[in-house]
C-alpha cells in the first residue's frame, strides 16, 4: 500500500497513472475517493498536478479534489518514506505506553513524529487504533502489525526494515 513505486520518476508518468486509474472508474458514481486512494497507492502521494488531472478526468473542480484530499487523513500531499511506521496511539495503546514506543522509534531513526528520514526510507506517523488493541502497544509497517512491543523491540523491528 505505502510503496512509492514511481518515486523520482517524472510528472508525465504520474499523470499517465491518473489517466489509467480514472479510466477504470469512468461512469462510476462517487468515485473520487477510490481514485485518490488508487493513485496514491501507486505514486505514494498526491502532488498538485496530479490532483488537477484527477479533477479533469473525474469532472470535478480541482478545488473540490483538494478539499476532499485534505479532509481525510489517509491522503498525503507531501512525499513519504519507503516505509511508513504507524505507531498506534489508540486508547489501549496509550494506556499501555505508546508514548515510549514513538520516542524509541523516533530516536532510532533520528526524526520527530510525522517526519521522514533524510534517506527517504522511513516516515514515522501516529495513528488512532489499528484494531489489535489487546496486543497493545502496536505498530504497523506496510500491512504488517507488530504487537506486545517494548521500546527495545520497536527499535529492533525498525532496524530490521532498514537493512
Amino acid at each position: 500500500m505505502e510503496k512509492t513505486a514511481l518515486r523520482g520518476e517524472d510528472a508525465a508518468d504520474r499523470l499517465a497513472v491518473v489517466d489509467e486509474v480514472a479510466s477504470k472508474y469512468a461512469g462510476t458514481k462517487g468515485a473520487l475517493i477510490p481514485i485518490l486512494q488508487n493513485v496514491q497507492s501507486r505514486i505514494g502521494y498526491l502532488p498538485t498536478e496530479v490532483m488537477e488531472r484527477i479533477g479533469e478526468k473525474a469532472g470535478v473542480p480541482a478545488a473540490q479534489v483538494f478539499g476532499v484530499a485534505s479532509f481525510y487523513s489517509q491522503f498525503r500531499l507531501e512525499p513519504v518514506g519507503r516505509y511508513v511506521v504507524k505507531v498506534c496511539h489508540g486508547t489501549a495503546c496509550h494506556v499501555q505506553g505508546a508514548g515510549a514506543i514513538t520516542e524509541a522509534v523516533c530516536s532510532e531513526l533520528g526524526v520527530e513524529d510525522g517526519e521522514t528520514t533524510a534517506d527517504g526510507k522511513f516516515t514515522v506517523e501516529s495513528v488512532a487504533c489499528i484494531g489489535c488493541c489487546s496486543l497493545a502497544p502496536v505498530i504497523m509497517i506496510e500491512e504488517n502489525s507488530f504487537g506486545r512491543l517494548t521500546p527495545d523491540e520497536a527499535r529492533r523491528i525498525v532496524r530490521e526494515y532498514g537493512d
Partner: protein
Amino acid sequence: MADRGTQMTVTVGLSSCGIAAGAADVMAAFEREIEKRGLDVRLRRTGCIGMCYSEPIVDVDAPGAGRHTYGGITADQVERIVDEHIAGGAPVDEWLVRAEGRDLPDEAYYSRQVRLVLRNAGMIDPESIDEYIEAGGYAALEKAVTSMKPEEVVKEITDSGLRGRGGAGFPTGVKWDLARKQPGGKKYVIVNADEGDPGAFMDRSILEGDPHSVLEGLAIAAYAIGADEGYFYVRAEYPLAVKRLGIAITDARERGYIGENVFGSGFSLDVYIKEGAGAFVCGEETALMASIEGRRGMPRIRPPYPAAEGLWKKPSNINNVETYANVAWIISNGAEAYASHGTETSKGTKVFALAGKIERGGLVEVPMGMTLREVIDEVGGGVPGGHDFKAVQLGGPSGGCIPREFIDIAVDYESVTKTGAIMGSGGMVVMDDTTCMVDIARFFLNFTQDESCGKCTFCRVGTKRMLEVLERICGGEGREGDIELLEELGEQIIASSLCGLGQSAPNPVVTTLKYFRDEYEAHVKEKRCPAHACKALITYGIDAEKCTGCTLCTKVCPTGAIAGEKRELHTIDQDLCTKCDACRRACKFDAVTVD
C-alpha cells in the same frame, strides 16, 4: 465441523491479532513439518476466536479425542506438537490452554460467554463459503426471501428486541420499518464498518472471522426494506477485513446468494465495498453517506433521517456490523429465542473488546445484563501484575470512565447511561492505579479535537479550548478556575454542537471530573500526578538502599543522564532526564523511584 471422518485437523487462527503475534510463521511451520513427515492432516485457517491474549492459537482436532487448543505458540514449538500430538497422539499438556473435559485456565473465558454473533468466529475458515454454509449459513436468507413477507421479517427483528450495536442503541426493527414504508423505487442498505472508536475491534474481528454472517444480515435487511443495492463502508486501517469481505461477496455472488433473483424469489441485490479514508467523523451516518458519495465527510442536521433521505437522497438503512451479524441468527432461531437472552430493555448479547490493563484481553460475547465485575474479573481475569482496578472506559471518545464504585452495575444500555458513560460500540479499556484520569481525558479531547470536521463552531473551537486547559493541567501549569472552566465549556459544547461527535466529545472529561475530581485538584493545586503518569509532574530518582551499582541503568539511558561507577550509587542528572522510563524498566532491583 472438525470431524471429517478419521482425518485430524489443525487449525491456526489467522486474524490481524494472530498475525501480529506471529501466526503466519506458525502456519508455515505446520505446513513444513506435516509435509516433511507425509502426515494425512487437514491444515486450515480460521478467524479470531477472541482469545487475543493467547495468540497465536492452534487447535488440534482428532476424531474421537475432541478439540485441544494451544496458546502462545511460536514456530519453534510446532515441531514438538507435530511429533507428540499429531503423530504420537499425546497432547503437549504444558502448552494447552483449553481442552474438552479438562479444567484449564482459559475455560473461564468461555464458560460465561453466549456466542450468537460470534457463532462461527474461530470455528470456520472465513475465506470458505462452503464452511459457512455447512455451519447453517444462508439458510436464514433462504427462509426470509422464499417464505416470509418483508413486513414479517421486520416484525421478527422488532420482536427480538435487537437494538443498534453502533452506539446509540436505536431499535433495529423500528428503523427497518421506517425505511420499508418509504415509497418504492431506489433504496439502499449500508453497513457501518468504520469502527472509529480507538480501543475497539469487534467489527474488525467479525469481518475477518465471519464475513458472510454480516453479508447475509445485509441481504435480509435489503429484502425487508426493498433495497437492491448495498454498501460496506470499511475503515482504511483494516486491510484483512476488506480482503476477506471481498472474497465473501465474490463467492456469494457466484453461488447466487446475492445478485439477480436470489433463490428464485425475484429479490435482487448488488453489494459493493467502499474503503474509508481515515476520518473518525465518517462513522456518523450522514457523514458516512457523504463520504460514499465522494465528498468530504461532514455530518448534516437530522431529520431528515437516512430512512427518508439517505445515500444519493434515496431512502437508506444503515446499521453497524454487529447489528447485521445478529440478523441471520434471529431469523433462523426466532425472535423469542433471541429475546430470552438479556434484560427487559436490552435483549440478546453484546460483543466487547477487552483491552488495556487486563489479564485476558480479547473479544467476548456475553448476555446483556451481566455485571461489569463479571465481565472484567471472571471473563477477563482482572487486572494483572498485582495492580488495583481503577476504572473502565466504555464508549470511546463519546463515552466515559466508570469507577470502581459502579463495578457491580449490569451492562445494559440504561444502567451504563446512568453512570454518565455510554454502552457505545463495545470497546472496554480497563485502567489501573498507574493510569492518570486527567491524562485520559486529555487523550480523548486531543482525539476529538483533531477529528472534529470543523463545520460547527462549538465543536471546532470548544474542543480546542478544552484541550488547551487539559494540556495545561497535565503540564503542571494548571490554574485556579481551570476545573470550573472545563465544566462550563463541556456544558456548552454538549448543548450546542451539530452532530454526535461534538455533543459527546466532553463526556470523557465530564465523567472523570465527576468521579476523579481529586486527581484534577492534585494536578492543579499541588502540582502532583497521583498516578505518576504526567511527565511534567514527576521526577526520577535512585533509592540508595536498593541500588547495587550494577550500571545497567547508565547503559540503557538514551540521554546519558545517569552517572555512577560499578558498585557505587548511581545518580540522575535531572536536566538531562527525559523521563522515558527506560531505567526503571531495566532495573532488576526496583531501585529507580518515581515521585
